[in-house]
């Protein structure tokens, strides 16, 4: 039994209960740390609860652990980070996500703008997009292999497929949500055609488009494990599959944590765009 988890969990809960009394500066760091500590402690306790004792034929008792706890995971993370594997796999995965998500934006944003602007285009495009959107990338794996073989292209295609439909839908919705008054005032000033699109519609929709891109990037990053189930030989998803096949479950959980951390980083990077002047007006709270 891990006593640290039994002590840490109630302390963290207490901290969360006292949240209102914490000073503004401290709560920004203390609250997420406390939530994290609760999660990690529950993980450890769950792990302890699942372990069992096995008395052998010779009377010796062995403690059998069923799955890795937070400390095993931390050790796995240190191992992966120190021997350079982490960097190699992260770079491979980031490259695939950049390529797949980049293509999805290049194709998806124009399509979404068009479908958002023109009702006819939406009528033509939307049913197909909505029908393809819920299909899991895992279902696309055989298709990807048959079309693109077992190299990078397949994984990139899967990420593209997973992220393009949210991009199209999000962009389309963003354009359709622009208040008509913007468009009409611009028209009254004689702004028409492409100029209207460039100077009014696109800037007006941009904040919402960025939000939809953030969601799509999250999906693209989430899909990395499925995309790398294809016989590629590096990447974080590959590493999870490989560690799983080899019984190294501590490395599985370690890679999961790394995927989560990099996901936070990606989201933070995309959020920086929201601070640009062209976009900032769209966020009332900042």
């Amino acid at each position: 039994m891990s006593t640290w988890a039994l002590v840490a969990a109630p302390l963290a809960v207490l901290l969360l209960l006292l949240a209102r009394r914490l000073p503004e500066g401290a709560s920004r760091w203390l609250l997420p740390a406390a939530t994290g500590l609760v999660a990690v402690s529950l993980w450890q306790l769950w792990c302890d609860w699942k372990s069992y004792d096995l008395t052998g034929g010779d009377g010796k008792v062995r403690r059998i652990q069923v799955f890795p706890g937070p400390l095993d995971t931390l050790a796995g993370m240190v191992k992966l980070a120190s021997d350079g594997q982490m960097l190699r796999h992260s770079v491979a995965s980031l490259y695939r996500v950049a390529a797949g998500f980049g293509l999805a934006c290049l194709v998806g944003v124009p399509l979404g703008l068009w479908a958002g602007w023109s009702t006819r285009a939406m009528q033509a495009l939307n049913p197909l997009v909505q029908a393809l959107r819920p299909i899991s990338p895992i279902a696309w794996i055989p298709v990807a292999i048959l079309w693109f073989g077992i190299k990078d292209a397949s994984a990139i295609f899967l990420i593209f497929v997973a992220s393009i439909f949210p991009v199209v839908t999000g962009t389309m919705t963003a354009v359709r949500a622009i208040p008509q008054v913007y468009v009409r005032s611009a028209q009254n000033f004689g702004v028409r055609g492409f100029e209207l699109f460039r100077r009014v519609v696109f800037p007006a929709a941009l904040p919402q488009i960025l939000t939809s891109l953030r969601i799509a990037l999250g999906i693209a990053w989430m899909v990395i494990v499925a995309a790398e189930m294809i016989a590629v030989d590096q990447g974080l998803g590959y590493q999870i599959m490989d560690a799983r096949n080899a019984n190294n479950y501590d490395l599985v959980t370690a890679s999961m944590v790394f995927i989560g951390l990099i996901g936070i980083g990606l989201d933070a990077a995309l959020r920086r765009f929201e601070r640009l002047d062209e976009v900032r007006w769209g966020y009332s709270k900042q």
Partner: protein
Amino acid sequence: MTQHSASGTVFKAQKFTDFPSMKEALIARKIDATFMIAPLAMKLASDGVPVKICYLGHRDGSALVVGKDSPIRDFKDLAGKTVAIPSRFSNQNLLMQRMMKKNGMPIDSMVLKEVPPPEHPSALASKAVDAFIVGEPHPSKAELEGYGRVLYLMKDLWPEFISCVLVVREEVILQQRPLVQELVDGIAASGEWLDEDRETGAQHRKDAAFVVGNMFYSQKPELLEHVLTKPIDRVSYTNLMPPKETFDEIMDLAVETKVLPRRMEFAEYVDTSFAPDLLKVDVPFDRLPMPTEAQLAATKAASQPKPAEPAKK
């Protein structure tokens, strides 16, 4: 896991579609025994998962397959080619290493690529690999569908090849010994049943192909019949006592190729105490009960809808 009937214990069979999930079910104690590839079982044991190999699943029953029109004619022609293996923790992998050594080829003279077994035929068909080595029915499938040619059956490469083994959790071995014995006896008896009329028409195997294909695996019975009868020694189900010399050889190969981290003694991961003397096994077997039309229809309805196939003849 079990229910009892007058004729013995009924063991519940659970189908998995991949080894990792099965392994996790075993680690989490959701299943008590399973068939898995031998080196994977050895890896589990070496990682401290309390399991033991109690029996073999079958002998032979794999094949090395190349493209139908491929110029590859013997093992040495595979130099520089890409060969799909089911897993690095498979004896198919160790067999390739063993053959390279035997032929004096360096260990890196071909690319061995881990590909999930059901994808081997399509990987060959799409020329993503030049050859594959895996258990049945995938070699037969490539052969029957016309794009694969069997380069070697196991009897030509490593006679009495061991692929899958029966793995039982130690907890069950320690606490439910008679039950494990009954399981192993049943496997031994059904293996004997499958093999006993091999030379005289192999009706038992044909029946098994029909029943198992229709009722359990949603595989075409014709495919399974091909596996079981063409040729008749493509796979065998007798002589399933785990042999120490072969396992020692597998262990040496596995340690040498870093598939396993350390050498283990045979007794650390094998328990031969259940392996029955075939002459003493006496489980009444006649013929497998044939499914009724209603059962066949029910199974068909339960499986996923498939596109209608053109009627044959």
